């Protein structure tokens, strides 16, 4: 597979919640091994776009291709695709009744039929990778937000996904914990994990993203290589948005 091959290709995506048209003719391409950061004001449809990529939302029109397959109309078979896509949420959503380790082990054993000892070994290695091996037997409410989010990342990785989706992974965190989570995401990204990150962390976007997608009012306003985007040469509107958030 060539480095330039698109693992995700979205064309003309439209999505409404009742009368509210939240995604308008959105197109997006994510190349194998690359990291795309999606930014934009609140309510611009970033999170909805991410949820559509994981088939957690139904769409009105458009097509979504993933890994060379049209996944737009999978319906009840959507769970098969989701096994190959890891997702991390703003509010972590660790399963509250399970320990960190059990959270990570659950899906590989249940969904993929991985043998328990093997799944546990993988889970421990992943906790090592996200730098909290000592928290394996803690319950979510005994962990800090940053620790919970790192366990959530490990949980998604345990399914050995072909792509990771991060939905505002640091928005619910205290400032001192943001770095520990972003560092983990950055490491994965550098190791070649295809990633789509919805975030407000501009420094992170500048450092880690290969491309930046700027959305507003449900449209993709700008989609450019990171350096170009931050130079502000790609679009007027993106430039104004950058000025707003960088000077506040």
């Amino acid at each position, binding site marked *: 597979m060539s480095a330039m091959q698109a693992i995700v290709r979205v064309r003309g995506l439209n999505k409404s919640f009742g009368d509210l048209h939240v995604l308008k003719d959105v197109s997006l391409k994510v190349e194998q091994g690359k990291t795309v950061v999606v930014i934009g004001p609140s309510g611009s449809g970033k999170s909805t776009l991410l949820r559509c990529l*994981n088939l*957690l939302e139904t769409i009105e029109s458009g097509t979504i291709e993933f890994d060379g397959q049209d996944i737009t109309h999978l319906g009840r078979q959507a*769970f*098969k*695709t*989701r*096994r*190959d*896509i*890891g*997702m991390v*949420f703003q*509010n972590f*959503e*660790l*399963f*509250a*009744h399970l*320990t960190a380790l059990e959270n990570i082990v*659950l*899906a590989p054993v*249940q*969904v*993929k039929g991985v043998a328990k000892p093997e799944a546990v070994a993988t889970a421990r290695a992943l906790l090592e990778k996200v730098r909290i091996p000592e928290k394996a037997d803690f*319950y979510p409410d*005994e962990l800090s937000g940053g620790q919970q989010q790192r366990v*959530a990342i490990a*949980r*998604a990785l345990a*399914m050995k996904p072909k792509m990771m989706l991060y939905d505002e992974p640091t928005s619910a965190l205290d400032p001192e914990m943001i770095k520990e989570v972003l560092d983990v995401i950055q490491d994965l990204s550098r190791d070649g994990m295809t990633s789509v990150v919805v975030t407000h962390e501009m420094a992170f976007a500048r450092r880690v993203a290969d491309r930046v997608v700027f959305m507003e009012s449900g449209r993709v306003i700008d989609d450019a290589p990171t350096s170009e985007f931050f130079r502000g040469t790609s679009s007027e509107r993106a430039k104004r948005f950058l000025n707003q958030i960088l000077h506040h």
Partner: protein
Amino acid sequence: MDKPWLVVEYFVSPRFVWGASLTLWITVVSLFFGIQVGLLIALLQESKNRYLNALAVGYLWLFRGTPALFQIIFVFNVLPQFGITLSNFWSGVVALAMNEGAYMAEIVRSGLQAVGRGQRTAARALGMKEWQVMRSVVLPQALRIIIPPTGNQFIGMLKLSALVSAVAVEELLLVANQAASANFRYLEALSAAGLYYLLFTTLFMLIQARIEDWARGNRGRRGKKSSLFERMIGATGGDGGRVR
């Protein structure tokens, strides 16, 4: 009470022991099936299918809108006309379980709803099928919310089981009533039966406390425990308000 020892005599007599055992058995079996029915109705209510929702609403309307005693007599006397003939015991149990299901459904549903939507989304995002999401993520968390009120249902059911005396099941109350009508020793006979009921409700509350501690301990929690006395007040007080 000129013959107080008569209470003890009744209490230990084989007929009373048998009646009390039957009462306990009716309670356990009815609640067991009642929980299954409640779970089923709750899942129907939560379903996205409109017809299944309507089915659940119809069920609740029927079983909450008529007295439990009516349901017992109906199952015993009317169902045979439609070719469904059950023994006295099973008529009582089926009616009580179906009645209980209508109340358990609400308890199960509030437990299910207490599990946040994000938990289901996260499970789905891991590639779980809907039934796996339900079994591994939603139900175990809902259970912690469902257990305490279910203990109260147990106590309620114990008391409700006396109703099956109406279809001649020789449970505790009927035994006491029969014993008394032979010699008009109502005070002694009913006291003996009352002692059994109090013994059972107290035992249930102790067991419930254990189960709740287990559910908490299972999570590595060091939550506050409530005393048995608090439970008795809470359980009896709470259940007393229930209208059937």
